[in-house]
């Protein structure tokens, strides 16, 4: 009898304490993107983009826009996220947030104010992209339609992924990377930036999907360099690839001149290689109290296109091209590093972390002034390129053409 009573009690307890956090799919809306602008009256202006599931149904007619947005102003992001049902009908679920757009004006003032809230909150995954918006309001970015990807934020996320895999132009900075870089003394955070081309008013209309040209398009536009929490400035798109060379860039496509002669860019002939595999090693050391930043890049490549008539069946041609490629990489990566040294004086590359690993004691001495040390450091970039293949053709018809002319 006692046992039976106990069993019933346990079962009652089991049932009564359950279900407290269950929520049906019909009662939630999935937030995919957030945009933060400076508020007019309050500190922040938060725009949430959430999906309209009815639009994704295969069976019922696809009516309504794929996403809705909800704009509020307030002094903290958490407060706004909690209060969102002032206008939205459903409980918002933040676990699928993919992109966080931050207006550059907010970034200039510092973003520590809400990063903690995002990292602390359980629903947020910390793997969403952080993007700084350069033109227009951040609010506009979550509204731009695209016929391929219905959800603007998912489009941006996919775009970033493809860009990173195809050209190596996205630093793949997600929230956790950003915060890691922020707290590290040997590194400063960077993120990608986006710029809006076109008319956001038209781009946010569903009709814009009906035309072949895009009324408005969001493009990546290089890196945003942070000095701690504050936006310090920008690097161009080319610089952002050079930045990625130092960060173990995996894949890219590289165009470099095949000869030294020819002065202006127009006269030069170029060869284009695809890099399927690349490794980077960073070294930082002191030589007579002079910090030296060394980047070793080891790259494999295959020829995609050539404009010059060199005979690709000869090994010397490959050697020459390899040398040119090495020179090109060394110059361009070196240029980006020294530009960062001069213009911003912040170590976004993580040379300080390399020193931390390689010479801990020395780093302890200089860690508080590491950015100054970085700015005066000597930069050595050495690249090793190996061109393995030349596509499906060995000899270019250009070679035969030039042979004919010589005869």
């Amino acid at each position, binding site marked *: 009898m006692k046992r039976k009573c106990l069993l019933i009690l346990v079962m009652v307890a089991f049932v009564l304490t*359950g279900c407290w*956090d*269950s*929520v*049906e*799919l*019909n009662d939630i809306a999935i937030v995919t993107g957030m945009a933060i602008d400076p508020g007019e009256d309050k500190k922040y202006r938060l725009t949430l983009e959430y999906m309209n599931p*009815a639009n994704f149904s295969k069976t019922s007619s696809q009516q309504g826009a794929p996403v809705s947005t909800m704009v509020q102003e307030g002094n903290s992001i958490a407060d706004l996220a909690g209060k969102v049902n002032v206008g939205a009908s459903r409980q918002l679920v933040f676990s699928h947030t993919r992109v966080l757009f931050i207006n550059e004006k907010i970034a200039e003032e510092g973003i520590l104010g809400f990063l903690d809230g995002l990292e602390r909150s359980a629903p947020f995954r910390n793997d969403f992209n952080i993007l700084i918006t350069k033109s227009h309001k951040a609010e506009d970015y979550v509204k731009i339609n695209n016929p391929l990807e219905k959800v603007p934020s998912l489009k941006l996320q996919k775009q970033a992924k493809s860009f990173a895999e195809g050209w190596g132009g996205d630093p793949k900075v997600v929230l956790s990377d950003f915060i890691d870089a922020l707290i590290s003394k040997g590194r400063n955070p960077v993120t990608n930036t986006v710029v809006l081309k076109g008319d956001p008013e038209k781009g946010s209309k569903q009709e814009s999907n009906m035309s072949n040209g895009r009324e408005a398009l969001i493009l990546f536009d290089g890196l945003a360099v942070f000095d701690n929490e504050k936006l310090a400035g920008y690097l161009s798109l080319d610089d952002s690839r050079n930045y990625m060379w130092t960060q173990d860039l995996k894949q890219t496509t590289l165009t470099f001149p095949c000869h030294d002669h020819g002065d202006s860019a127009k006269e030069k002939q170029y060869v284009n290689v695809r890099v399927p595999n690349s490794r980077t090693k960073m070294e930082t050391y002191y030589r007579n109290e002079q910090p030296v930043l060394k980047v070793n890049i080891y790259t494999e490549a295959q020829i995609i296109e050539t404009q010059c008539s060199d005979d690709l069946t000869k090994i010397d041609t490959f050697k020459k091209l390899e040398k040119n490629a090495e020179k090109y990489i060394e110059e361009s990566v070196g240029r980006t590093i020294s530009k960062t040294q001069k213009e911003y004086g912040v170590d976004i590359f993580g040379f300080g972390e390399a020193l931390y690993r390689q010479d801990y004691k020395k780093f302890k001495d200089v860690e508080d002034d590491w950015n100054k040390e970085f700015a005066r450091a000597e930069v050595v970039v050495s690249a090793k390129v190996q061109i393995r293949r030349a596509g499906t053709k060995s000899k270019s018809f250009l070679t035969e053409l030039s042979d004919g002319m010589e005869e």
Partner: protein
Amino acid sequence: MSLFDILFKRHKNKQGNKKTEEELFEQDEISKQYFTNLKKNKNQLKNLFQDTFDFNIDSIKIADQEACVCYLGTMLDKDALTNKVLNAAKSSSKQSLLMDIEEIRDTYFPTCAFEYADNFHKVVWQVLNGYAVIMVDGQKKALALEIGNKEHRAIMEPSTQTIIRGPKESFVENINTNISLVRRRIKNPRLTFESMIIGRDTKTTVAIGYIGNIMNEDILNEVRNRLKKVDIGGVLDSGNIEEFIKDKSFTPFPLTFNTERPDSICGHILEGKAAIFVDGSPFVLTVPSVLTDFFQSSEDYYQPFLMSSFIRAIRYISFMVALVLPSLYVALSTFHQELMPTQLLVSIQAQREGVPFPAVIEIFIMELTFEVLREAGVRMPRAVGQTVSIVGALVIGQAAVEAGLVSNVLVIVVAFTAIASFVSPIYNFSISTRLLRFILILCAAVYGLYGVLLFLIVMVIHLVSLRSFGVPYLAPIAPFKLEDQGDVFVRLPLWTNRTRPTYLYTKSPIKKEGSGKPSPPMQKGGG
């Protein structure tokens, strides 16, 4: 008497099986005494079988003596009986020698299977078994003759455990046929069948089959003891026996293996298990059985081992799918939206738009509908089978979705679960998943994944506590036996399998010596 009969009887006597036919009749208040006076015996029989239309007592004269043949007309071939007895009576009419019953048998029925009945209980027993009993005046014993047989179903292909490659025979209702199906496959004098009679009213023959020099003696004794303890009115199928000899009643998992495939039974007997044959049932039990037995089909050993191993993996996965898929759906969609990929979540959410029920109610409706359909499908007459499946498919698959009562993805979940639950080669194993599934859905609805895991932990604890005739139910996984792993989740080639399952503690643990790995003949002189 055939070799089979000799072995059969010998072991029966050797074991001194207490529950003989004679004892069984004592509780029925039938007197045991067999009289030398034919009239008294006749009267006694007539009193016992008084109202039965098919009971016959025919008076005849054999070797110039008063005699009678008594039999149940429905239990034997009357033509054969007439032939045999008439011939005897005819040929004996020429002689006027006085013969005793043994001489009568030797002279007139030399080829017939027979048995002497020296008490009245035996006479009744043989009559009930379809023998013709000849009682001769003045003799102390009656002669029971086996006459051509009763009707029974022919050996056919298995109907519930079909395979593609392998023997296509299946057990039938007749226990002798079933035993002969096993004997034909295992030509071993140590293959022993002990019979006993179970059932107060039905007096059904039950036989334990095993190989004497393989089977563990302690387990065998346990089997005997448990069968002896069975006290039941009627045994109509091996399922009746199963419930009495289980180690634990309150469990959804089957603790005895059952099959209608003789090859499968032979495999189990050769491993060192005991088979329990029940007269009247085409399903033979084997004990002890462990969980992994229910994931193995005899076909695994007839197909290439790579394929068999793959199929086994499919079976284990299907078991898990059938068990947890609906509850995972409930848990993920109502508690853990963050665990699903965004695209999948949107797709599921889009389908659920406008569905009026919570996910758990929705899945309960569909699961119950499916259980109803399944039950209807099994029971309905063949003639209306088509109707039910068409209506069922339409109702479940289309109408419910189109009416917006359930979502598409849920139909997929339920359908996949249902198909997965059919994968186990032994039908009654899927019962456990069917029952546990509903509890799991409830757990998922109350606590999400936490509840699912909680229940699975309880389930594993329960499984570990189970025993089948003293053998741990999860053997050879827990306790873990490395030697047995070649035939659990994967099936290694047969030549690697040298030992019998260690958890059965057999008398001869080694099946064969040497590796026996097949290879081309070695070339001399370095080829």
